[in-house]
């Protein structure tokens, strides 16, 4: 059995990138269903065009259009495609030297099996139904049995409107595991317990436990159960709305130093007007109904004042 708690996590974000004049010209060409390369100082035609000349390092300016058909220089078979690839069934990748180009371009090749490809076979671009100015405007390459090689560059690239930016969505799936120490913390919460750990070197009690004492760099293996009450060491009143906010502002987010702990946990202070919350205030956890508990800190709905006299500043001075 796994010693850790884990769950699927997807991290997704869009990269918004400006293209610059060279990549913008290439992508603008794709939008107009033309493949644009560039002639470098050595006279070679490179696709996609490099932003700067590989030898002189001067900006690329000599754009040429190459043919949408070419020859397979190398290929491989992808038996188990991953998310986001041009096909969601087994397919081939190919390095294709387009007629008129001196360097190969990478893209997918639509064939039914690895037996239907060989190095040197003729292929042509299959355009996407809608072209928007992205590498995916080329849906893939497809076999081009009757296309004879055409050596010549088609000529100067058309002066279409360059693309200025692209948005690339990225979404990554993980099985995210808590550390063994975090796992025992969350498992404890599922039973209504708050579990910390004590450093064998300095004696400090960490909650949540963290695997190693950040002061001494030694494993913290002695488990300590902590009470669900403590002292507000510092707090802030949240007045600003933000995406995903679950509580109506204003509300108080505070550091609560549980009795016996050496590091505060962050939680909400409720059942008291926001402007009455103060450093040193004694608070206790308000647990949700037991049937709602899971392996989460949300089992504690919030903290509320106990009504005890405020803690002496000296008791939490070192934990600010």
């Amino acid at each position, binding site marked *: 059995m*796994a*010693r*850790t708690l884990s769950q699927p*996590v997807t991290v997704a974000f869009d*990269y918004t*990138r400006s*293209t610059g004049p060279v*990549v913008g010209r*290439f*992508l603008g060409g794709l939008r107009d269903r033309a493949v644009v390369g560039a002639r470098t100082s050595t006279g070679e035609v*490179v*696709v*996609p065009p*490099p932003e700067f000349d590989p030898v002189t390092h001067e900006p690329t300016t000599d754009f040429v259009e190459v043919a949408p058909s070419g020859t397979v*220089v*190398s*290929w*491989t*078979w*992808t*038996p188990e495609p*991953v*998310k*986001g*690839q*041009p096909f969601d069934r087994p397919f081939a*990748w*190919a*390095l294709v030297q387009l007629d008129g180009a001196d*360097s*190969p*371009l*990478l*893209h*997918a090749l639509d064939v039914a099996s*690895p037996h239907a490809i060989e*190095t040197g076979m003729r292929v042509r671009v299959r355009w996407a139904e809608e072209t928007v100015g*992205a*590498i*995916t405007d080329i849906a893939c390459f497809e076999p081009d049995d009757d296309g004879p090689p055409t050596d010549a560059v088609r000529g100067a690239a058309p002066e279409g409107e360059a693309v200025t930016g*692209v948005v*690339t969505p*990225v979404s*990554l*799936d*993980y*099985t*995210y*595991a808590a*550390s*063994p120490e*975090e796992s025992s913390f969350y498992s404890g919460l599922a039973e209504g317990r708050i579990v910390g750990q004590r450093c064998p070197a300095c004696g400090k009690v960490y909650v949540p436990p*963290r*695997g*190693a004492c*950040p*002061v*001494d*760099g030694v*494993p913290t293996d002695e488990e300590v159960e902590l009470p669900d009450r403590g002292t507000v060491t510092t707090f802030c009143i949240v007045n600003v709305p933000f995406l995903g906010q679950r509580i109506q502002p204003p509300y108080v987010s505070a550091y609560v130093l549980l009795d016996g702990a050496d590091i505060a946990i962050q939680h909400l202070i409720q059942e008291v007007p926001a402007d009455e919350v103060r450093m040193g205030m004694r608070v206790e956890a308000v647990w949700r109904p037991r049937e709602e508990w899971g392996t989460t800190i949300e089992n504690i709905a919030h903290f509320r004042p106990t009504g005890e006299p405020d803690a002496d500043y000296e008791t939490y001075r070192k934990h600010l």
Partner: protein
Amino acid sequence: MRDVAVVGFAQRQMKEFDGSPTCVELLVPVFRECYEQTGFTRKDIGFWCSGSSDYLAGRSFSFVSAVDAIGALPPVNESHVEMDAAWALYEAWLKIQTGEVDTALVYGFGKASAGVLRRTLALQLDPYTMTPLWPDTVSLAGLQARLGMDEGRWDEAAMASVVARSMADAEDNPDAVRKGARSVEELLSAPMYADPLRKHDCAPVTDGAAAIVLAAGDRAREACERPAWITGLAHHVDPLHLGSRPLTTSPSASRAASAAGVDGVEVTELHAPFSHQELVLRDALRLGPDVRVNPSGGALAANPMFTAGLSRIGEAARRIWQGDADRTLGHATSGPLLQQNLVCTMGATT
């Protein structure tokens, strides 16, 4: 130049690490092993440098959490690279050369099994013309392997013999996650996976952590009976675009080898995540036929992301500590299809 040596090395490698992506739980025992080897405590370490990637972990600032394993109070002198930790070693070596510190602990960690490694690595490609297609690492390696086959640089049997030797050597490596001697004939009878690659041509997805201790001059002599003195250290990079560099040779590895100097090397540890890449590197480094390659089993036996290159340097250093060799070489790669290469040569004498 100051004389700097590799004086400590520890690693943990496994197929799937049942723990957090920060790998703190792995780093603590790895560091402890380094302290035991060198007699240093953490207070003797002048500089800390790590290699890791948040994309691998799926957790932001994972390298900051990993600092817990050091015990960073009072604050420590620390840095990080988003590359194999071999490049963190390069930074640490430079730091020692500046004279600011005399010792450094370099570490790398990664939990590749948390995601789909061959997909995640598409993020290191050109973001305009490649990443949106999500070309996976295995497919790219397949394109490279076939190019070399079509050019007559290698064939299936040559690739299989790399695997056969690596898997046989891995049997003696307690840290190997894939091992087991098989003949070239047996290997060639295995089914094709990413044609022209079979699964055994591809390094296993591996989780792990590793650390190396560097020390200068007398600090090295006090920490190690037979230090592995760094005699050459260089790294170079080829263009990112697959169409703008040769894929069946490795100009950057050749330049790094020339700069580091490979004459007289007896044992070499090459970081080749695919069987044919070892053939590319052996050529690029101009290694003679009598040079022993990858006695550890190499990356085909275990390839923890962000540490496998550092571990190659550690494995090569170990041959010197043990007296098995007087001159060894550790190589690391980073980026797609051997794009970046680092060569570290070490000797029993400075």
